[in-house]
């Protein structure tokens, strides 16, 4: 088989098993890595994989495989593949695939299934993977013959990458993997379809509305990241003198210190950011979906503003807000066209008001010079490393502190679980980013709650010898839940404080990763710098107070203007 596998297109009929054909088709798609775990129902795939140049990343839990694929996909924009066996293998993937759906990440989950004639018999390790994956993917399949792979595999990549990206899943019964098939030609690899066509008149209309607006604000969402259009965005905003807020998923589109940047909006946005949104008369919403964490109470969101919405997903138009103008298109293509025809302008009055609000209602980073305070720890890390690093987070207070305070400078530098908010995301996503871009160091900010949800992947990081730094902001609590109990449940603390404290230094060492605890250090700043700058995986424990809070905060369901501020803000 070896010499056959090197042929791009067979000239005579060639015989493959379904599993060999699968691997061949994945190679032709340009897949370089597959993360996963073998088991009874996907043994033929793993047998075929040893004949391939595709590198397998052997994880310790299938959820880790899903998040590694996500980390690679979020770093590169390319569709990435993970493998799991049937039953628990497939169900363990579910959370990572659901997470990919909500954040529009192209991941292809390929699972083994019991043989066709045993489906429906409650066979060993049988579950309805098709039914479980159905609501959390763009599309999914159960493959009923090896021949169907010729159509399904390229189509899976096409669907994952076209329009608004997202996950797909393919369930392959074991007998289909073993079925012999003769083929003459390989199908063309699947690729993204062209984006919807839009009228140049729509772009003219958009520019006209922007020209007429007195107090416009541009909201830049993750769709611009996925369109690879950060440069076009910057040019557009600079030429039209538009203040830009970024959604959580859009962070990094505009460098943190760009004069037009207003940072992140919404539940934990800066006071001035949400106040500027209150006053604006036009929202230019690009590649974003009006998530409830961004809008707050929808009825009170930007009460003065009409809305222009540009997105590639027709079902987002009018789902939450009713735009006066909507353009169904790739946002990058719209910006590119707009940039060629727009008349540059300035808005001195509005920019003056924006500056005034910025100055009078700043984001207060309380404790930013103290290494053992949240903002201080994040700022210290950012000051030691350079802009080339990638950053992942887990989910909770640390995630919001990083979103507020880390000086992001480019798209795809920041990778975090936005829509689903999955604790346990950060470490395996960091592994994926490091595999995809080995020249870049990855900083994973996490909490003691989140890290425990996928800590087993430290062994994977050690095995792959990756340059990942895991920073634990350790408050010995589920901090963001504690914060909500404090603010909204009369401080009735329920199941948030961990009684058993994990020694993360020892846990890291047990899995072959260096671990340090800055509270045990005589010169914590120097030790942090040394740990960050040397190559290799390292867990860095930074204890913080359990009383730390993320401010400002908008109560869930509340209006963005009603921000709760910290003591000194």
């Amino acid at each position, binding site marked *: 088989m070896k010499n056959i596998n090197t042929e791009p297109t067979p000239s005579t009929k060639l015989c493959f098993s379904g599993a060999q054909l699968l691997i061949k088709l994945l190679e032709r798609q340009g897949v370089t890595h597959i993360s996963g775990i073998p088991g009874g129902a996907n043994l033929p795939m793993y047998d075929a994989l040893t004949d391939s140049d595709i590198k397998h990343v052997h994880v310790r839990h299938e959820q880790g495989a899903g998040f590694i694929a996500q980390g690679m996909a979020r770093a590169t924009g390319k569709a990435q593949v993970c493998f799991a066996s049937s039953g628990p293998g497939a169900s363990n993937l579910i959370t990572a695939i659901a997470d990919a759906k909500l954040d529009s990440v192209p991941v292809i989950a390929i699972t083994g299934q019991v043989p066709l004639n045993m489906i429906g018999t409650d066979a060993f390790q049988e579950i309805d993977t*098709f*039914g479980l994956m*159905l*609501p959390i993917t*763009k*599309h999914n*399949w*159960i493959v*009923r013959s090896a021949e169907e792979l010729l159509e399904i595999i390229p189509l899976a990549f096409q*669907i994952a990458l076209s329009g608004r990206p997202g996950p797909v899943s393919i369930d392959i019964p074991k007998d289909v993997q073993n079925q012999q098939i003769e083929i003459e030609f390989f199908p063309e690899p699947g690729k993204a379809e062209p984006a919807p066509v839009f009228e140049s008149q729509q772009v003219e209309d958009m520019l006209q509305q922007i020209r007429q607006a007195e107090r416009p604000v541009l909201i830049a969402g993750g769709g611009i990241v996925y369109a690879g259009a950060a440069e076009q965005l910057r040019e557009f905003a600079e030429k039209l003198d538009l203040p830009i807020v970024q959604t959580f998923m859009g962070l990094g589109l505009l460098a943190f210190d760009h004069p037009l940047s207003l940072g992140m909006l919404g539940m934990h946005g800066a006071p001035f950011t949400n106040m500027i949104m209150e006053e604006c008369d036009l929202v230019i919403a690009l590649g974003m979906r009006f998530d409830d964490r961004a809008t707050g109470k929808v009825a009170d969101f930007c009460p003065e503003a009409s809305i222009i919405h540009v997105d590639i*997903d*027709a*079902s987002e*138009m*009018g*789902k939450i807000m009713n735009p006066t103008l909507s353009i169904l298109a790739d946002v990058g293509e719209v910006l590119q066209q707009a940039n060629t025809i727009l008349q540059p302008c300035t808005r001195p009055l509005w920019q003056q008001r924006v500056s005034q609000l910025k100055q009078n209602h700043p984001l207060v980073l309380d404790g930013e010079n103290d290494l053992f305070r949240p903002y201080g720890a994040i700022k210290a890390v950012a000051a030691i490393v350079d802009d080339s690093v990638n950053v992942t987070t887990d989910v909770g207070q640390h995630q919001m502190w990083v979103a507020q305070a880390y000086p992001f400078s480019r798209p795809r530098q920041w990778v975090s679980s936005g829509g689903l908010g999955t604790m346990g995301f950060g470490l395996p996503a960091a592994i994926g980013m490091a595999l995809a871009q080995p020249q870049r160091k990855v900083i994973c900010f996490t909490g003691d709650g989140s890290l425990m949800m996928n800590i087993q992947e430290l062994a994977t990081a050690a095995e792959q010898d990756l340059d990942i730094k895991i920073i634990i902001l350790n408050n010995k609590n589920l901090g963001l839940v504690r914060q909500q109990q404090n603010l909204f449940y009369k401080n009735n603390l329920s199941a948030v404080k961990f009684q058993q404290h994990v020694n993360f230094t020892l846990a890291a060492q047990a899995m072959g990763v260096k671990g340090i605890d800055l509270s045990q250090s005589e010169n914590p700043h120097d030790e942090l710098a040394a740990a960050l700058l040397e190559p290799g995986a390292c867990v860095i424990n930074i204890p913080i107070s359990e009383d730390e809070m993320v401010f400002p905060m908008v109560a869930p369901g509340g209006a963005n203007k009603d921000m709760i501020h910290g003591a000194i803000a």
Partner: protein
Amino acid sequence: MNTTHSAILKLTVNNHPGVLSHISGLFARRSYNLEGVMVRPIKNGTAYGNENLSRMWLLVNEKDKLQQIISQTEKLHDVISVERHTFEDSVFAHTENFFVE
């Protein structure tokens, strides 16, 4: 019957195993009210390749969300087209007798 809050959607879909799951799953997870479903293969129906097609009639008990329902349904890979019809002009008008006690 009272059809004031109802809409009729006529779908052309790929006749695959699983396509009904994709559509009913969408309605369930987005909590759209589905009052009636009628589905049969289309005689001699072919899609882009040699795939068979099915016709699916949906009686949807939603008014405000209808455009959103159509947009979400159109996104499904196996859905080829979605059309709005009146009740009188639908399969349901002819089958009322089968749904009485």
